């Protein structure tokens, strides 16, 4: 296997991933093939630009937060022109079960007429709402249009539509949340449910499909979104693929989120 070098942002971030992929990657903080960037602070796009300019062939961004859509699109354009990749490693949207369900149960997802996303968080309600939108995106849905968003001390309740479907987004604020996102796609005959855990552990997501014949589950994948993103970037570099499509979709979802929050009732 082609071993790639990767730089880590410090404070121990990424060490557990390195331990789980020791043949694919080794740490090298100077001139790495891949740079791991913390997506938390506002302005993470600048950190990604810096990493690309200093020679990384690809950058993996850990849980990027809402930032300027224009800056994201500029970054996508720059990276694309340079033939480099930027991969977004998002706790919920990047859980490997999301892509698995999208490819395996896509027809069932498309046959539904009501979507629900729900999560309990300790704080950062708007970020949680945005991350719910990112899950919808990675399941293959277009951005929803929210007609009503209500926020308060208890969280957020959003009501919208998506290609003829109703959409409910709910974020509850409580210290007892375990970081799980629940997604339910309800159809007249079928239902797809997903429970996406936090990335604090490699606890597997749960995915189930209910049809008139019964119910089935997808096999458990003992892997966080972050480990899956490392494997993905390894494949892309090995295959000589450059990809910035994550950034383009992310920018569009930022705009959807901010538009919804702009006309909320407080």
């Amino acid at each position: 296997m082609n071993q790639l070098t990767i730089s880590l942002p410090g404070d121990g971030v990424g060490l557990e991933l390195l331990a789980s992929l020791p043949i694919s990657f080794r740490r090298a903080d100077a001139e790495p093939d891949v740079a791991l960037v913390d997506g938390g602070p506002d302005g993470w796009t600048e950190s990604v630009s810096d990493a690309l300019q200093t020679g990384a062939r690809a950058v993996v961004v850990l849980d990027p937060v809402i930032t300027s859509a224009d800056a994201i699109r500029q970054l996508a354009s720059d990276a694309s022109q340079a033939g480099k990749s930027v991969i977004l490693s998002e706790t919920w949207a990047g859980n490997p079960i999301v892509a698995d369900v999208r490819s395996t149960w896509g027809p069932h997802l498309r046959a539904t007429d009501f979507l629900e996303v729900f999560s309990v968080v300790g704080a950062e309600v708007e970020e949680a709402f945005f991350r719910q939108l990112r899950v919808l995106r990675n399941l293959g849905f277009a951005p929803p249009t929210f007609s009503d968003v209500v926020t308060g001390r208890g969280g957020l309740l959003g009501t919208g539509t998506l290609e003829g479907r109703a959409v409910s987004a709910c974020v509850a604020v409580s210290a007892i949340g375990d970081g799980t996102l629940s997604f339910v796609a309800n159809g007249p005959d079928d239902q797809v449910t997903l429970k996406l855990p936090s990335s604090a552990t490699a606890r597997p997501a749960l995915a189930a499909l209910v049809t008139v014949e019964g119910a089935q589950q997808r096999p458990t994948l003992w892997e966080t979104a972050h480990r899956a993103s490392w494997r993905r970037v390894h494949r892309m570099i090995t295959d000589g693929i450059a990809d910035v499509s994550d950034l383009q979709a992310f920018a569009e979802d930022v705009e959807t989120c901010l538009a919804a929050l702009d006309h909320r009732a407080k």
Partner: protein
Amino acid sequence: MTLGVGILGAGPVVQAIHLPALARLADLFHVANIMDISPEVAASVAGRVGAGWSTSMEQLLADDGVEVVAICSPSRFHADQVIATMRAGKRAVLCEKPFATSREEAERIATVSAETGVPVIVGAMHTFDPGWLAANGVWGDLPDIATLIRSRILLPPNARFEDFATEVVTRPEFGPADLTDPDARAGLMSGGILGLAIHDLPLVRTFLPAAVDVVVEAAELLKPWGYLVTLRAGERMVQLLGAVSNRWNPEWTFEVFGPESKLEVAFTPSYVQAGSAEAAVTTSTGRFRLGPFDHNGYEGEWRHLHALANGTAEGGPALDELIGDLTFAADVAEGASAIVRDGGLA
């Protein structure tokens, strides 16, 4: 000595819910008389439990063997039938929800109940569910500090459960609604709130401050049938979700979130004798699981009615609480209907 029950109405709810529940309580009740405007239906349903039958309320109330009355007729008849039952000197009344169609009707019931001393309970079965009642004992100050409440009811059509509960002889028929008609949309929303959400609206109200106005912020009709409604009561937010589809898996949950605690209740579907809800209260110190218990809220309400009739009841909602529940449900239905009247279907 068991109490004689008279039942006004003999539709699927009576056939598939109340008669099976009463069959489990044979040490407390026997069915004395069943009334339906159709003599064939009345005779057929009464015949399966060896009861007499009537085709008018007056006939049933004149039956001295009837000591308590369950009112399971269409809701527009409820108030007058409750009042007539109390005036007839029966010992207690169980009225299906809603027990009146207006606040004025509800207050008339309260006045006559005070005059006659006949107790009335409303068939809000989840308020009598042992799982819910057990959770009430451990949720502490959650009603005072709740911030977000979710009522989520996703069900197959009733017939799926009715046919497991009994063999039903009549069912009402529903035609498709014209969703281009604003009144039809409003009617669907109102029907959703007063027909399905109403089961849990008294539970929602438990976690809302009494002195704060409730505002309907958003309402959406769901396909093929259902509602999605957002309420705000001061700082508290409420999501009401209900839908009926062809899926076989029922989901009937009620959740309340506080800053450092959470209540989750998973109810069993109506009709089937599947026992009580399972509840869990989570706090920073742990998770308390409650239930399941061996009977559901319907059986619970009949047990409570028996205790009321015998003067041994403890607890249970007072009539002014029931009026509050009714007014709350009517306000939510009215507000949500007004929104979808001007809107459409997702």
